[in-house]
């Protein structure tokens, strides 16, 4: 009977011991910078709370894991020991040296028991850290395309333009400076317009050899939809939405439309007009953006994407861009040309 009682006591104490050393350490919050230069010191602050009955003595292990193959486990050296007081929260700042290889790393901090060398808990960072040297580069291929001889209608250039870019601009806040890839034409020298036109004719697009007329130029990439449930077109599987359909070219019809006077929802359409440089203002809504990372705009920000990241590929892999034009009765016969500028822009 006594032996049974002592066995029960042993079980209860061992459970208590286990809960005190493992389960009672709560990770309250953490902070670290989002960007770093290669080999730069990174400071990771973790706020821990011990709800158990005993003090815990521990040392940290910070793991920076790159996606796919590469993995770095970096232990701070020499290891300094820390202890957490019973029933008390505390902030701990650990320093780690960033890897020499550029890339995007996930961050985790493992708390290891000083005496048993066993992990107590692991704090997973909620955002990645980007390590690299400040860089901006872009190239597009093919860089020349000719739509050929066109009659009335809408035409998409069937071959996508592959855009390859690298951009990394850390700012003083340890964050990634918001950036986007803007598309525009720069027709200021070419486009002259018509005298006395009551409304200024749009300068964006391809310009006639006389300098008087333009054909609007549109672009599409996967960021711009269409929304698959309302349109029935799954662009990620089926590719660019067909330009012939007004739904994709002009936008959905609004309720106030009449058969004689259709009104389109211009805000929600996958094919977007490329403006001219002269039409753009400081307001980001006057820009056309292909890809980017822009948390302040809110357009692509959602609970799973707090950084507003709408890149379609991992740098420096290319993403695809399609161009299309519409030839209508206002398209005067003749030769048209234009240069579309793809600009990595960080305001």
């Amino acid at each position: 009977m006594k032996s049974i009682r002592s066995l029960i006591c042993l079980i209860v104490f061992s459970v208590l011991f286990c809960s005190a050393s493992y389960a009672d350490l709560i990770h309250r919050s953490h902070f670290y910078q989002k960007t770093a230069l290669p080999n730069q010191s990174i400071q990771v602050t973790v706020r821990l709370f011990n709800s158990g009955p005993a003090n815990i003595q521990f040392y940290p292990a910070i793991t920076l894991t790159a996606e796919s193959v590469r993995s770095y486990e970096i232990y701070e050296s020499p290891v300094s020991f820390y202890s957490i007081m019973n029933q008390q929260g505390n902030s701990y700042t650990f320093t780690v040296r960033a890897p020499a290889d550029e890339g995007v790393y996930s961050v985790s901090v493992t708390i290891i028991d000083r005496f048993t060398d066993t992990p107590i808990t692991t704090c997973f960072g909620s955002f990645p850290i980007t390590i690299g040297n400040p860089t901006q580069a872009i190239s597009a291929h093919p860089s020349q395309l000719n739509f050929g001889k066109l009659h009335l209608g809408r035409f998409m250039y069937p071959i996508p333009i592959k855009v390859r870019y690298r951009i990394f601009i850390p700012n003083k806040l340890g964050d990634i400076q918001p950036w986007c890839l803007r598309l525009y034409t720069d027709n200021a020298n070419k486009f002259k317009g018509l005298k006395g036109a009551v409304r200024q004719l749009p300068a964006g697009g391809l310009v006639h050899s006389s300098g008087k007329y333009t054909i609007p130029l549109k672009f599409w990439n996967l960021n711009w939809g269409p929304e698959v449930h309302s349109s029935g077109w799954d662009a990620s599987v089926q590719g660019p939405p067909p330009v012939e359909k007004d739904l994709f070219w002009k936008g959905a019809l609004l309720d106030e439309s009449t058969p004689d006077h259709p009104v389109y929802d211009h805000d929600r359409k996958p094919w977007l007009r490329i403006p001219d440089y002269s039409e753009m203002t400081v307001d980001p809504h006057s820009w056309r953006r292909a890809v980017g990372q822009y948390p302040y705009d809110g357009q692509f920000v959602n609970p799973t994407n707090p950084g507003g990241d709408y890149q379609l590929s991992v740098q420096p892999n290319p993403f695809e861009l399609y161009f299309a034009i519409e030839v209508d009765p206002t398209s005067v016969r003749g030769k048209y040309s234009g240069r579309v500028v793809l600009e990595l822009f960080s305001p």
Partner: protein
Amino acid sequence: MNQKGKIFTGIMIILAICQSLLASTTSEVYISCTVASFGGYIFKGYINAPANKPGRNIIGYIDVEGAANEPYPWIMRVYTDNKNYQATAGAIHQEKPSIGLIRKGGGHLPLQFNTPNTGEEWVYIPDINNKDHYTYFAVRDMGPGATIPGDSTRDTVVMGIDPRNAEWVAGRDSILFTDDDNIYGDISIATPFTIKLAVMLPKDTREFKKTPAGKYSTKLIFEIISEP
């Protein structure tokens, strides 16, 4: 290398560095195309209705197909040219000369047309030789308010594109600089469409003498004039 040469080389090197820095953040795609001539409009006329009652008699219609992409501003205007008929007409009663169909020896039947652009309205077709006929005027001088009175062009224009024509640019509400503006001033009509033709017969049948029997003729001209 002298001092000036050194400065010049230095500037060139700095420029070259700046150039490479700038070039790295933008890339350009050169896009070109040629817009073919749309071939112009094709008119197919059918005259198959009788003119037998006083008032407006629709005598037939013209189906228009095709498209034109002339340099704009361009207009397609309609008029008759009765000079040749007039010469043999004898000129007995010439108070309103040469409108519509002309009869040798006097008499005329006014001719009207209707298109999707005119709506329910029927427009008289003028004669080019008439003194009251004016060629096309693009812009009516717009005072404060920029509300465009209707019918500001003084030529019978079937369709056209003119970004300088305030009336055409103003759009449905006839007010300039509002959201519904037609920036190109494009009043070309999507084909196929129909031009209806009608003649006016005098209202009182007992006074039918005003429309004496005989052969009525005219030369009806649809003319495209583009940027001169």
